[in-house]
């Protein structure tokens, strides 16, 4: 297990034109902690839908790489979407799950992954082409490369420490962040 912040920072170093969608809560704060970016889209509601936003975006932009960075709670709430992604097989989409086995936003109650539910195994069952189980921070650079060049759909299961880190708050103006994203990505 390792610290989520340097891992996410490692994923996003020299990110180029990578499109990033973040799940509400901790993963949004982790990505924002790397610095706000016009090609970040932060979700602030509709828990469970982050992977689907990534899918819609990946299908609309086959010319670009899309990375969803989210948590175990969000992923568990939208498990069916892993199957939907498995059916569509977008080769430009990666899902990164920062699994701390807890709902940090609501007081660190355990999620189902704390009881051993295996999200990486679920992704394999859902026909993700590449599934990585990451237990060492030292693999961040390797995972970063996968986001940019791996044949998707890619699923990166990162076993991070169960802590509730400082909340770095990006904009919560959905209109502003969506239009900024569209303009910066040329749409």
């Amino acid at each position, binding site marked *: 297990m390792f610290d989520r912040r340097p891992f996410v920072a490692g994923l996003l170093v020299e990110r180029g034109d990578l499109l990033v969608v973040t799940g509400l809560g901790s993963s949004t704060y982790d990505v924002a902690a790397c610095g706000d970016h016009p090609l970040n889209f932060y979700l602030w509601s509709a828990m469970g839908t982050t992977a*689907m936003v990534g899918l*819609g975006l990946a299908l609309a932009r086959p010319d670009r790489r899309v990375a969803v960075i989210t948590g175990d709670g969000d992923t568990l709430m939208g498990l069916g979407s892993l199957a*939907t992604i498995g059916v569509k097989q977008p080769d430009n989409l990666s899902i990164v799950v920062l699994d701390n086995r807890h709902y940090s936003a609501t007081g660190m109650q355990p999620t189902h992954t704390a009881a051993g539910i295996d999200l990486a195994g679920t992704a394999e069952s859902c026909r993700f082409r590449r599934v990585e189980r990451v237990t060492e921070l030292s693999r961040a650079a390797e995972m970063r490369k996968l986001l940019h060049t791996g044949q998707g759909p890619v699923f990166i299961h990162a076993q991070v420490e169960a802590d509730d880190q400082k909340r770095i708050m990006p904009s919560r103006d959905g209109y502003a962040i969506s239009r900024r994203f569209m303009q910066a990505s040329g749409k």
Partner: protein
Amino acid sequence: MAQPEVPSSSHARKHAVWPSQIHAVFKRYSINQVGYVPDTGHAQLISLCQSDNEITDVVLTSEAEGAGLVLGASLGGQRAALLMQSSGVGNCINTFSLLRNCAIPCVILVTMRGEFADFNPWQVPMGSITEPTLKLCGFLTYRVEREEDIEDVVAAGCKMAFGGGNLQVAILLAQRMVDRIKPEGH
């Protein structure tokens, strides 16, 4: 105790013109992604979308995945529509917040259940609150009772959604009308 099946309608037929009219309106408004859960009422339209190279069709495990898909498509510069039954609207409520918060234009076509001679009374609770629910979620709603109105209403809905207002529009297709193209017992 098992009861004998009562035929739901003596007028059941399998093909109608209106699904292809909806498809033509989708084309006119450059809708490139269509998300749906398989449905008998939408079957012809789904089939037209599947065989259209300019439309990416996405089969969902739950309607709750749909709003996320629409938002993602929109962030990528594409327009998207969703097809669902009235029961699916209930599955979406919280996720519709994405479309409101980000002012994402969207058209949803809803085949109604539980409102007219439905064989399954368990469809009634959701069917009877579908339209007010959509309104509470911020949608403009239109209801179509007659086949001859479909093309105009879907086109009007697309114009309201994609014509610059960034609105969320739901078009409810009356069960009495939709049932005519369903095989019996659906």
